[in-house]
């Protein structure tokens, strides 16, 4: 048990080191930009996977909380009344309340109807962003930049500092989600994913547990929104559009939903794909669509899930071969 924590810490440390060393080895702003994007969308996908992969709740509206994070944070910073840390905490708290209200209605619905109603709420929030122009700037987004006043001697206007800040926040969130993944609560979620009726008969309060993870996942998604808002220095209604939710789902499917880090792998793959496809062709949809079809119809699961399964199968066949060989040897 303790060794699990140690292993996670070790992996986390390697990840931090990698993320910090990469831009030093390759000091190009483009790499930093790329990684910040991956981290922001990675948080969105990872948090969605707490619902999809861990609890079996297929939300079509997760980007609503991503947008809420970006907008709440942006508005708080533009108000000029609070510093970045307070604004971030308030944003996460505010999004948690929003997720609580929406979740209280949604988690009572089962299966595809849960998906529908989350989609409906996302459409609702998106239309609020579009119509409440005086607050949100409507379709033009939050304009005029989001100020980044220095705090505790940290100045996020410096690109490298901003990057390091994003890495720290990202790893922190990943650590929290990893803890959820491995905690007793995480196993309650697995019970609900596999068989909610049975979980109920084993004393798990299914509706409240679902609501709990819905709120938690929403809060984590809002951190992704905060990072993106900090980076692009704005917030846009597209953050809360259904295509953003769709992209997060695609990241999960591309990477894999059963491996903890799968969605981040998916985020890296999708962003790389996006990056290169837009460079080489204007027919971005054609290429991306073809890749999706190949993965979905060819692998029938996420890339990371596929590799994990493949390794396992190979180990099994080897073990079987070895046992056959030893039997032969004995004979």
């Amino acid at each position, binding site marked *: 048990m303790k060794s699990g924590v140690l292993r996670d810490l070790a992996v986390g440390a390697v990840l931090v080191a990698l993320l910090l060393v990469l831009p030093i080895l390759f000091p190009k702003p483009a790499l930093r930009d790329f990684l910040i994007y991956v981290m922001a969308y990675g948080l969105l996908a990872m948090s969605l996977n707490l619902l999809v992969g861990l609890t079996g709740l297929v939300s079509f509206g997760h980007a609503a909380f991503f947008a809420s994070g970006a907008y709440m944070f942006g508005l708080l910073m533009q108000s000029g009344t609070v510093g970045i840390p307070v604004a971030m905490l308030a944003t996460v708290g505010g999004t948690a309340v929003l997720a609580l209200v929406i979740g209280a209605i949604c988690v009572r619905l089962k299966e595809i*109807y849960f998906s529908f109603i989350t989609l409906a709420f996302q459409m609702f929030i998106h239309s609020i962003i579009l119509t409440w122009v005086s607050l949100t700037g409507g379709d033009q987004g939050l304009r005029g930049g989001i100020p980044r006043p220095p705090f505790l001697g940290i100045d996020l206007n410096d690109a490298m500092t901003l990057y390091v800040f994003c890495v720290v926040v990202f790893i922190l969130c990943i650590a929290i989600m990893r803890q959820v993944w491995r905690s007793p609560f995480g196993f309650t979620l697995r019970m609900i994913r596999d068989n909610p009726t049975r979980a109920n008969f084993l004393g798990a309060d299914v509706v409240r547990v679902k609501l709990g993870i819905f709120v938690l996942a929403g809060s984590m998604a809002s951190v992704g929104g905060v990072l993106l808002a900090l980076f692009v220095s704005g917030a846009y209604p597209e953050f809360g559009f259904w295509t953003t939710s769709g992209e997060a789902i695609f990241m999960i499917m591309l990477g894999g939903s059963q491996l903890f880090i799968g969605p981040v792998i998916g985020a890296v793959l999708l962003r790389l794909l996006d990056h290169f496809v837009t460079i080489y062709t204007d027919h971005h949809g054609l290429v991306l669509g073809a890749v999706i079809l190949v993965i979905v119809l060819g692998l029938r699961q996420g890339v990371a899930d596929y590799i994990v399964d493949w390794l396992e199968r190979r180990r099994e066949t080897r073990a079987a071969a070895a046992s056959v060989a030893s039997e032969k040897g004995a004979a």
Partner: protein
Amino acid sequence: MNLEALASCLSTSACAVTQVSTALIIGMLLFMVASGLSLIFGVLGVINFAHGAFYMVGAYFAYAAYQATESFAVAFLAGALGVGLIGILFERFIMSRVYGKDVLMQLLVCYAAILIFDDLVKIIAGPEYKMMGMPEAFALPPLEFGGGFVPAYYVFMILASLAIGIGLWLAIEKTRLGKIVRALAINPPMVSALGINTTMLYAGVFGVGSLLAGIAGALAAPTRTLTPGMGLSILIESFIVTVIGGMGSIVGALIAALLIGFTRAFGAIGFPLFVDGLMFAMMALVLILKPSGLLGREPAR
């Protein structure tokens, strides 16, 4: 909110007729798209998120055929049959491989199809706006009913949609094939045990569902602008319709489509800023109170 304007509109026959016809124009086209979506879900249990793209392809097929032949009948058939065929191919080669998988797989496959179709249309037809234009036969002054005016083409569109809807309903409820299809929706192994080729049947149903999207596209082509990506907004609206009416219910789709049509037509008079909110509220309310929709049956499991 201007209920006075609404009341005064309803009290004059000219306004009432025009707005009712507006509701029918919006509603019936929506019904064409939504009924296909609903049919496919009802029988195959998958949500065809690519349905909007099929509508778009139908419109472009009709446009191309009309450019070539100047005949609206040919254009209509090209849109309907072309998309029906694409639907069958899509079902056979792609969709059928993700039956029984989780809904995310189906979503992704459809998303891929949307991306590909949008891009193909852009490559083949170009990104600029296309307008098919009104066929000669319908280039008449609007018809007058009780002081209200309805363009001739819209009268045709409403009647055609209605006829197709009734035909579809009769086919499902009253024919032997319809009975088999309904049985297929509830108990596929049983249908298969009767010696019926369910694979063909699935493809056929998907084809008919797509055909309806193609018809809607062809009917829309003379009055709506053709652009890549035009399927998106109609997908969202017909999705709302299907959820409200009940996934799998043709009559439910009709009722919900007309509900949306009337909301928009009379909302424009009485509460223009609240129309979208009302559409959303209806969908959320239905989902909360009766998740399977107004006329949907509870999922069998």
